[in-house]
């Protein structure tokens, strides 16, 4: 089936089997491999992408369901030149080791801080509890997200 949607601002058309989930579509059909698959049953959060402004698990959505949607992946958060404030905070706090869960952490935190730039530590931990990390013990990730809030507040007050 043919599906049309926007990926990181660019319109794309793909032809997929109905059974293909969104993460496979992004990774295999569109070669955007920043979105990772850690479980394929909605338990680890590594495949989190932002669909129409909301963070969702790309393994729990069929590609054919995103017709007409606008999708942001980890690749869409980055710029060629510099790391974003969120990415910079992750690096500063050593909030990643193997880097496998990192794209899902970034997309989830980005969606959260875009909506709730004042989220406190408890809220951040609650939201990130849907993303598994086996390396860091999470504490530096939470610290990084707390640290990045200021940048989202600023952009909110435009």
């Amino acid at each position, binding site marked *: *089936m043919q599906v049309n949607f926007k990926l990181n601002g660019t319109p794309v058309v793909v032809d997929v*089997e*109905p*059974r*293909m*989930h969104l993460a*496979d579509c992004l990774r295999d059909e569109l070669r955007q491999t920043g979105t990772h698959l850690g479980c*394929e*049953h*909605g*338990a680890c*959060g590594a495949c*989190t992408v932002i669909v129409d402004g*909301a*963070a*969702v*698990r790309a*393994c*729990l*959505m*069929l590609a*054919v*369901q995103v*017709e007409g949607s606008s999708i942001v992946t980890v690749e869409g958060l980055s710029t060629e030149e510099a790391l974003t404030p969120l990415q910079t905070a992750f690096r500063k706090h050593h909030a990643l080791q193997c880097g496998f869960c990192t794209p899902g952490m970034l997309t*989830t935190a980005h969606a*959260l801080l875009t909506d709730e730039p004042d989220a406190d530590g408890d809220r951040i931990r*609650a*939201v990130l*509890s*849907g993303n598994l990390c086996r390396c860091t013990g999470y504490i530096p990730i939470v610290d990084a997200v707390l640290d990045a809030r200021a940048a989202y507040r600023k952009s909110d007050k435009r």
Partner: protein
Amino acid sequence: MKPAPFEYQAPATLREAVDLLASDPEAMVIAGGQSLMPLLALRLATPSLLIDLRRVPGLDAIAIDDSGIRLGARVRWRDIEDDRRLETAHPLLRETIAQVAHYQIRNRGTVGGSLAHADPAAELPGIAVTCDAELTLVGVAGTRMVRAGDFFTGPLTTVRQHDEIITELHLPFWPSGRRWAFREFAQRRGDFSLAGIALFYGEDQEGRVANAHVGVIGACDRPQRLMEVEALLNGRFIDEGLIREAAETSARTVDPPEDLHVPAAYRRALVATLIERGLRSAAQHRSA
């Protein structure tokens, strides 16, 4: 873990969706997919056709009036969380739904999907049963209403006929001044709970309990009300003695499944703990 092959349709009307469903005994309905997708990935569900409700109009509204609250089948957990009207219109619903699963799941998971999936530990079925809600189902033969207490028949089983689609959940009007609580326990935040309870009651002029509703999830094969506990509470003043009595009654009357690492005795005790804590907190807080 790729799903087995299936056909996919996203009909534009409810009628079309029902007809498609009726035409294929192996067809299934998908909305948010947050319960169905893992089953597809594990090939525990192998439908021949998936009927996506995403284009069907009229299923995504939260309507509030004197008769209560109508939740469209495609209302997401996030919609309930974001609807400030529910702070007074149904605080129990709002508080409970805030505890469903994780952030990403709440952005996709729907009212209709949760009811149809009928996990014994799911929060919304628990609220529906506790509040005496009614489901609207539409099938080829027409529309029917089913009381939540009659809808769930066991783990992942309901009275829904194959050709029926859940379109709405109606929660009866929530009067102001009710006392209420929701408590659930899982070892990790966001997991299906080992047990959970929802309760509310009004009070008569003197402050005695009236119209107590007490529901339990996770510790039985389907969400259910604990009628004995309700009867015990009605007409009495809440005090520590009654709370303990209610907790012990709940532990005695609930019928948890035995499983290898969560013994039934533990779930019973957990229900008692949650009832005790729920009643204690309800006695201290009253909804506006």
